[in-house]
């Protein structure tokens, strides 16, 4: 029984550590897209690890499966939201990356990359 609690505390502490890393990354990274990478860390690692830890902590069949389903929904909904925000902010010229050396996407959109370099 105590081994189970130790496992659940281990998962919860590691997810909290990833959450702290995310906040630091959101504050420190330079532009929209790199900040979004930092946010992807919390949404994949932290939420899923926290749900696994909670499911081990309660240890009851239906309740644990319910919590794991919530983690699974995180895994489904997070990449769509991240992708939609990034693509919209590129296509609508809300936050164009100005100082990138390698930018294959502007050629695909037919934009002159010298225009905003």
């Amino acid at each position, binding site marked *: 029984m105590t081994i189970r609690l130790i496992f659940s505390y281990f998962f919860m502490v590691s997810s909290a550590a990833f959450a702290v890393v995310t906040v630091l990354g959101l504050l420190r990274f330079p532009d929209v897209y790199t900040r979004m990478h930092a946010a992807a860390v919390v949404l*994949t690692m932290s939420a899923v690890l926290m749900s696994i830890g909670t499911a081990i902590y309660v240890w009851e069949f239906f309740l644990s499966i319910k919590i794991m389903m919530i983690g699974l929904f995180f895994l489904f909904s997070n990449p769509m939201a991240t992708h939609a925000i990034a693509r919209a902010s590129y296509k609508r010229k809300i936050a164009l990356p100005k100082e990138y050396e390698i930018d294959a996407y502007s050629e*695909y959109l037919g934009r002159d990359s010298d225009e905003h370099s």
Partner: protein
Amino acid sequence: MLQKLSAFGFLLIVWFIFAGKITVDILIIGSAASLLVTFFFSDMLFREVHRRLPWYHYLRKLALLLLFVPVFFYEAISAALKVSKHVFEKNPSFNPGIVKVKTELTDITGLTLLANLITLTPGTLTLDYDRNEKSYYIHWIDVETVEEADLKKKIIARFERWVGVIFR
């Protein structure tokens, strides 16, 4: 018909899990709700199979899908550690850029799943998919190379083989 039946069964199982116990009244309400959802949206949940395969192929695909989960978590944790290393540097010293990576998948479910897996892994982010040239546009937080083969090996090859076998 099989599509509708499998969608109905799946929704009923999810309903039972979220209700928390199995009784008659939950069965009645749940089957009514699942029937309503199945009637309108069944073609969005499962697709019809175009090509018949022997039954053990599906068993093998299911086993591979279960084996894929620990592989994905290992990759995700190692990539998350790589991103969080950049956070603790004095001046964040990375080289972000958008690269173009070709893929060999053709199945549309596999393509969607691969794009989602690339986005879920911290450090890479799918921006768009070009249908004519069959290539993803991926924002990478630390561009190490622009060579075609190296790019493919470093970003998508670890998932592409799994997805290509499971959704073929």
